[in-house]
C-alpha cells in the first residue's frame, strides 16, 4: 500500500510538538518508520554531549538485526560520522542521504580524491557492520545531532526519491525537536543553578548577620526552618494553598529578616541591661534599614514585606508602621511568630531561655493580640505534634 508521506510527516510534526522528552520522541519516530515504511530495521545514533560520542540510542526490528540500545557507539573519527559532520565531505555528498548502492557505484565509476575515497570506503564498511543501506543525518544549524540508520526494505526494493525526501524532512524535524527538548532541559538546569547561587549568597549574608549578634547564633536558620514548617502546616490544613514562589520568598525573608541589624551598634544589640529610649528607637529602625539595603533588588519585593513588617502586631501596636490584622502581609505574620518563638526559647542578654511549654502558653495568650491567630495556631499544632 502506498504511504501518504506528506500526511505522515504532518502527523509526526504534530506529535513532536507534544512530546518534550527526546528519548520518547526518538523511539516514536523509529517505531513509525519500521511500521509504515516496512524496513527490516531502523535505528538512530545520537550525539551525547557528556560522552562526546554518538551512541545508538534506539534500534527496532526483528531480533538479531536489532542492535541493543546503548551497545554501540560511533566516535567523532568514525567515517560515517565524519562524512556527515565535516564540511568538506558534506559539500561533495550534495544530497542529505548516504545510500549504500549508489555510493558503491560512485566509487567504481569516477576518479576520486584519495581522502574522499578513504572516507567513503570507511563509511560503507560501517554501514555493512550496522546492516544499514541508507543513512540520513540530522542537523541543527551546522551541528550533526544524529544519524538515522535504515535497514533494507522488507520487499527488497530500493528507496525512491520521494521516500528519501520524506526521511530527510523527518530527520530535520527530529533534529529541531531534539534540540528544543535539550535547550529546554539546559534552561531548566541554568535557572536551577542561578537560583541555588542566589539562595547560597543569601545564606552567607544571613550568617554574617548572625555572627554580629552573639546571642542569636543560628537564630536565623532556626527562624527560617520554623517559618517554612508553619507554612507547610497552614497548607496541610487547606487553609492556604501556597505557590512555590511564596515558599521561596518566605525562605529568603526568614534568612534576611534581621539584615537591618547590620546598621545597629553591637553595644546596643548585646547590651545586658534594659535599653533606654534612644537605644530602643535605634533597634526599632532595623526593619526599615533592612528594606534600605535590599530594595534595589526587584526580585526580593515580596520577601521585603517580611523583612519590613515582621515586628508589626496583629492589634496594631507594632512597628514600623503600626499595621493591623489583615493589613500585615502573611509572610510577615509568619516570620513574626517564628522569630518571637525562637527568641523566647533561647538565652538573651537580658534574660535566660524560657521553657517551650511556657512559650507556647504565651503565644496562645497573644493570639489575636500580638499574633495572627491562624499562624499562632499552626505553631501550637506543630508543638503538639512534637515537631518543634
Amino acid at each position: 500500500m502506498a504511504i501518504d508521506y506528506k500526511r505522515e510527516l504532518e502527523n509526526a510534526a504534530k506529535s513532536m510538538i507534544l512530546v518534550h522528552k527526546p528519548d520518547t520522541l526518538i523511539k516514536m519516530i523509529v517505531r513509525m518508520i519500521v511500521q509504515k515504511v516496512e524496513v527490516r530495521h531502523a535505528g538512530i545514533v545520537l550525539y551525547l554531549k557528556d560522552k562526546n560520542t554518538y551512541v545508538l540510542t534506539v534500534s527496532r526490528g526483528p531480533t538479531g538485526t536489532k542492535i541493543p540500545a546503548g551497545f554501540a557507539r560511533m566516535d567523532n573519527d568514525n567515517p560515517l560520522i565524519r562524512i556527515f559532520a565535516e564540511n568538506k565531505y558534506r559539500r561533495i555528498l550534495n544530497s542529505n542521504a548516504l545510500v549504500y548502492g549508489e555510493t558503491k557505484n560512485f566509487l567504481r565509476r569516477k576518479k576520486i580524491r584519495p581522502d574522499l575515497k578513504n572516507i567513503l570506503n570507511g563509511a560503507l564498511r560501517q554501514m555493512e557492520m550496522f546492516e544499514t543501506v541508507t543513512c540520513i543525518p540530522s542537523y541543527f544549524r551546522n551541528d550533526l545531532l544524529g544519524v538515522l540508520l535504515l535497514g533494507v526494505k522488507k520487499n527488497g526494493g530500493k528507496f525512491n526519491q520521494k521516500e528519501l525526501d520524506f526521511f530527510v524532512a523527518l530527520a530535520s524535524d527530529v533534529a529541531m525537536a531534539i534540540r528544543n527538548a535539550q535547550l529546554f532541559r539546559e534552561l531548566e538546569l541554568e535557572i536551577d543553578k542561578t537560583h541555588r547561587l542566589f539562595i547560597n549568597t543569601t545564606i552567607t549574608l544571613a550568617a554574617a548577620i548572625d555572627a554580629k549578634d552573639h546571642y542569636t547564633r543560628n537564630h536565623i536558620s532556626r527562624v527560617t526552618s520554623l517559618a517554612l514548617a508553619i507554612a507547610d502546616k497552614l497548607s496541610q490544613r487547606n487553609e492556604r494553598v501556597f505557590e512555590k514562589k511564596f515558599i521561596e520568598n518566605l525562605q529568603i525573608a526568614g534568612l534576611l529578616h534581621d539584615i537591618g541589624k547590620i546598621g545597629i551598634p553591637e553595644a546596643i544589640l548585646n547590651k545586658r541591661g534594659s535599653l533606654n529610649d534612644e537605644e530602643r528607637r535605634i533597634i526599632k529602625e532595623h526593619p526599615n534599614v533592612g528594606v534600605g539595603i535590599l530594595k534595589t533588588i526587584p526580585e526580593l519585593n515580596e520577601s521585603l514585606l517580611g523583612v519590613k513588617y515582621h515586628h508589626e502586631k496583629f492589634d496594631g501596636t507594632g512597628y514600623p508602621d503600626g499595621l493591623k490584622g489583615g493589613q500585615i502581609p502573611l509572610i510577615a505574620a509568619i516570620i513574626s511568630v517564628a522569630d518571637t518563638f525562637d527568641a523566647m526559647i533561647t538565652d538573651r542578654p537580658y534574660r535566660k531561655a524560657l521553657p517551650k511549654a511556657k512559650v507556647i502558653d504565651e503565644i496562645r495568650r497573644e493570639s489575636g493580640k500580638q499574633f495572627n491567630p491562624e499562624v499562632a495556631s499552626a505553631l501550637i499544632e506543630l508543638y503538639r505534634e512534637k515537631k518543634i
Partner: protein
Amino acid sequence: MSKLLIVDDEADVREFAANFFRKRKIDVITASSGEEAIEIIEKQKPDLLLLDIKMGGIDGVETLRRVKQKDRDLKVIMVTGRKPEEDAFEACRRLGALDYIHKPLELDELEQVVLKELS
C-alpha cells in the same frame, strides 16, 4: 573454524553479537549466565570468551575466576560498561583477562579485538 563463546545476560546483545561474528565466519556459541558458560566450556572447548562483567547470578569477574581455575590458558576478553568499577577491572587484570571492550563500543573495535585473538 575458531569457536567463540559469548556470555551476556541480555538476549539482544547475545543475538546481535552472535550474528555479527557468524557473518565473519566464526563459530559462535552463547551463554546467558556465568553458570551456563562454565558448563558449556567443559563440553565445547571454545577458543575465546567474550564475557560481560555485569550479569545476574555470578558476575563476569567470578565467572572469569572459575573458568581460569579450570583452564589457565583459555583466552578471555571482558566487556564492561563505560565506567567499570576499578575493583572489578583490577580483578580481571590479575585473573588474566586479555583485553577489555567498553560499552557502548565501536563495532570496528569489537571486530578487531576478537579477530586478532582468533587468527
